[in-house]
């Protein structure tokens, strides 16, 4: 399959707008699940407002949240896909700029030192575009994630040591949830990276935070850890918006990588309740949008 980069530009533009407007079904189900078990009256009311907002966004075709985030694109290239990589990157960036100008969207992206906003949602190194490869034939998947700053500003890395064991990981996650309080727009997906190098650990945490609800860590030890942490953080009582209640997190997601014999790194990155993502699969039969 040969990839048409003009089509990629259109898809990259469309994905940014779709992600900002349509919440994935797994997140909507997550709200229903939390609302059914929440015992705190304020928390019930807060969850009700969040669900009402999802409906209003769909009815008015408006953005779910004003924070257009830092745009992130994840590209998965299947077997037999022929693509000019550099042209693909440029096409995604152009699509991102066009979405910002043409919708229009608030450009939330500035130069880190001058704080200058180019009003394109782009800048040096942004949008980050990640590439992966899959065994699926004739299929190129582009996923778009607008990562809001309320949750992103609460990101942590701790280079624990082997003598601290898995207890260091568990304690760190609980303390991050406490420190985040209402700032991350809970209920959140708490993404935890375990192992790797420092940079890999943080990227695992981001992958975990942006994974669909209902999926689990492919590593059985990681999967067991995410189940126990999900139950545990929801006993803290931080609640939706940090105003108290049972619904602190939709889930804790864990991703693991092997690490060094001397290392025990743990990273936490959170995704807010407006856990937005959109994807498109490009195949010989056309473009199919999903999440």
């Amino acid at each position, binding site marked *: 399959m040969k990839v048409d980069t003009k089509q990629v530009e259109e898809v990259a533009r469309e994905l940014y707008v779709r992600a900002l407007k349509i919440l994935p079904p797994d997140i909507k189900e997550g709200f229903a699940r939390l609302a059914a078990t929440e015992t705190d009256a*304020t928390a019930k009311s*807060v969850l009700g*407002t*969040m669900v*009402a*907002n*999802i409906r*209003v*966004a769909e009815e*008015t075709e*408006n*953005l*779910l*949240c*004003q*924070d*257009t985030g830092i745009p992130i694109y994840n590209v998965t290239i299947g077997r037999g896909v022929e693509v000019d990589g550099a042209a693909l990157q440029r096409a995604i960036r152009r699509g991102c700029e066009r979405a910002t100008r043409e*919708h*229009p*969207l*608030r*450009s*939330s992206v500035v130069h880190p030192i001058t*704080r200058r*906003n180019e009003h394109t949602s782009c800048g040096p190194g942004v949008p980050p575009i990640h590439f992966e490869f899959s065994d699926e034939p004739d299929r190129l998947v582009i996923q778009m994630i607008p990562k*809001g*700053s*309320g949750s992103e*500003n609460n990101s942590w890395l701790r280079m624990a040591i082997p003598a601290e064991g898995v*207890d260091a990981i*568990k*304690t760190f996650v*609980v*303390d991050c949830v*406490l420190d985040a*309080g*209402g*700032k*991350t*727009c809970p209920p959140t997906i708490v993404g935890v990276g375990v192992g790797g190098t420092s940079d890999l650990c943080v990227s695992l945490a981001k992958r975990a935070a942006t994974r669909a609800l209902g999926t689990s860590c492919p590593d059985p030890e990681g999967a067991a850890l995410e189940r*126990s*942490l999900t*139950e*545990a*953080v929801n*006993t*803290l*009582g*931080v*609640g*939706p*918006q*940090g*105003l*108290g209640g049972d619904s602190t997190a939709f889930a804790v997601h864990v991703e693991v990588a092997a690490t060094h014999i001397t290392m025990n790194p743990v990273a936490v990155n959170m995704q*807010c*309740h*407006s856990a937005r993502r959109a994807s498109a699969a490009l195949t010989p039969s056309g473009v199919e949008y999903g999440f």
Partner: protein
Amino acid sequence: MAHHAFRMPVTEAQARELRVNDTVTLEGTLFGIRDATLIAMFAKGRTTRFDMKGHAVIHTAPNVRKVPASPAHPTGYEPVCVGTTTSARMERFTAPLMEREGVRLVIGKGGLAAGSAQAFNRLGGAYLAIIGGTAALETTWIEAIEDVDLDDLNPESLWQFRVRGFGPLLVAMDSHGASLYEEVDRKARARRENTLARLGVK
């Protein structure tokens, strides 16, 4: 748990009537302000032509569309999506906003800290919690962008919105020293040991 329908601006006495867990709905003028606006005003010596005395500010930077100026859109900006950002980053600006500009009410999400609580107590003000991430809903409470100042900071300009039925907002910090955030945080930290025990942490 009373409900207050405020036509802006309000007096110190009205602001001091508010108690945590009360609800508030605003009518009339609301100012949008955030990081760059506040840094410009209080760290870089910029001033505004707006009279914010007795008014409410909301921590926001909206999505707007440029349109020809008209009675409906006097600034040439049409609101597209107006929502609320995390307040904690703006903590150090609460007291100067109240002292220099006479602001009474701060609307935001996630709460403010002890310094702001003291300012609300000393000067007569309150923090009204909006539900973060519900901007589509919030936008339906905005009638128009009436005016804009410091627009070189766009989208972090100083926005003057006209609102109708803006809320209900939850009084989360009041002038009597109460803060729902402080209370929730204290209780959550008291549960930490129990939570860690459930996880088998030794």
